[in-house]
């Protein structure tokens, strides 16, 4: 890929990732976040996190299936960090708008409310991934160990989806779409590696 193409793509990805955040800031400033702004902020940041996680999880299978798109790997860190950014905003809505910085209430919420336990777990699982996202950290850990550590993303995605299901009303099916997408992206991995192991590598010409 040409350098200029890469730069242009990076700018586009940055803008796309920032769009939900800018939309919220604009909405808050103009009071157009709908009748229940707190709920809009919570829902938007939470759903954006899951969507970005889904995109991050799609990169490896897409590369394997379509080798031409291998360059997508260059965007994975950026997308992953944005997922963490939105997860952190989501966490902060709870800390500020719901719990009002009340530490006791937050502690009891984490223990008592399973949807908050799951959400907290998802954020905590993403934290070391964000912390070890630099080139320096990759070098320091070594590729193999870094790869192992970053498998935590699977657990984070599962916790995120469970968190979503555990706080909707019984029978409400809105989390279904993102669950199916993330479910497929997780299940396709063992399938692909199995297929790869079975198929002998084509001999070099």
């Amino acid at each position, binding site marked *: 890929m040409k350098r200029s193409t890469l730069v242009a793509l990076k700018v586009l990805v940055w803008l796309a990732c920032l769009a939900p955040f800018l939309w919220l800031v604009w909405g808050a400033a103009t009071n157009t976040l709908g*009748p*229940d702004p707190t709920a809009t902020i919570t829902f938007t940041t939470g759903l954006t996190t899951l969507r970005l996680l889904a995109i991050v999880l799609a990169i490896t299978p897409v590369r394997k299936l379509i080798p031409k798109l291998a360059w997508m790997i260059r965007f994975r860190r950026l997308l992953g960090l944005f997922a963490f950014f939105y997860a952190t905003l989501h966490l902060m809505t709870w800390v500020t708008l719901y719990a009002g910085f009340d530490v006791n209430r937050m502690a009891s919420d984490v223990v008592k409310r399973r949807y908050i336990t799951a959400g907290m777990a998802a954020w905590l699982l993403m934290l070391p991934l964000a912390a070890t996202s630099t080139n320096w950290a990759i070098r320091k850990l070594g590729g193999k160990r870094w790869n192992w550590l970053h498998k935590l993303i699977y657990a984070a995605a599962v916790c995120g989806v469970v968190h979503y299901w555990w706080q909707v009303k*019984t029978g409400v099916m809105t989390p279904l779409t993102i669950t199916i997408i993330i479910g497929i992206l997780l299940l396709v991995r063992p399938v692909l590696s199995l297929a790869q192991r079975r198929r002998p590598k084509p001999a070099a010409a």
Partner: protein
Amino acid sequence: MLIGNRPSIPSSQITPKDQYLNRRRFLRGTLAGAAAVGAAALGGERLAQIISPRTSVLAGTRLQTVKSPLTTTGEQLTSYEDITHYNNFYEFGVDKSDPAKNAGGLPTRPWTLQVEGLVKSPKTFDIDALMKLRPLEDRVYRHRCVEAWSMVIPWVGYSLSEFIKQCEPLSTAKYVQFISYYDRHVEKWADEVAGIEWPYSEGLRMDEAMNPLTLLTFGIYGQTLPNQNGAPVRIVVPWKYGYKSAKSIVRVRFVKDEPHTTWNDQAPSAYGFYSNVNPNVDTVPWSQATERRIGLPFWQQRRTTLLFNGYGQEVANLYKGMDLRKDY
């Protein structure tokens, strides 16, 4: 807070329509993107008013109303726009904005309310006769959803007890059940929720139904109910979570035993038969200690939830001797 002898606000004096319409949303809704940008640049709202006159936004027929001593005072009313565009009416879709879009097909005339079960003799009331049975009162109530949001709504109606007297229930009737309209051709969104059996059913204990606060409701803001708010007639029980207040009712049944209720069927551990607003009892995943008032900026929304939604003085005696943790 309810103040018994202070005169309440007649509908004619409740915030005029042109003020309760959220202007920003009005601007967004009535102008196409480019025009909106232009209008904003030109100093906005005035231009928007010229381009699109306000009268086009209003629905409903004006109702003749009288004051009520049972109105709640001292709270800012939620806007007509928000009350009519942020609804839980799952027969018309699960998203809060769905009912406003989808409820247009609800056939509110002709409409009858059938009274059956343990009554002297079954009766059928025509909606127009029902609306003339008693003087219609303006009653402002807090409305608290189990999802932890709340509104302040100027309802129009009269005490359900007045209607129940006309029904002549037998002394064996201990509960009253309300059944909502259901037609899967009109309400084709109803199946979006897994597990709910339609029609919607709700119920009250007889003494709860007879409490003067329980309102047989025909309107909001001095006008007939928009479809998405439960037209043409619904129940409003202000000290209970919103789902207890059945919308668009077609049948009232007097029964001996506790009737089945839709959300209780769906998840009995989360939605009890009583479902009184209670900040100390969380049966749903989230906390009920606080609530978000609709229509305010996010930093002003949060407030403390009150036991019985603040109507304890009027209703607490109904639950004397009951363990509210057990009978949630």
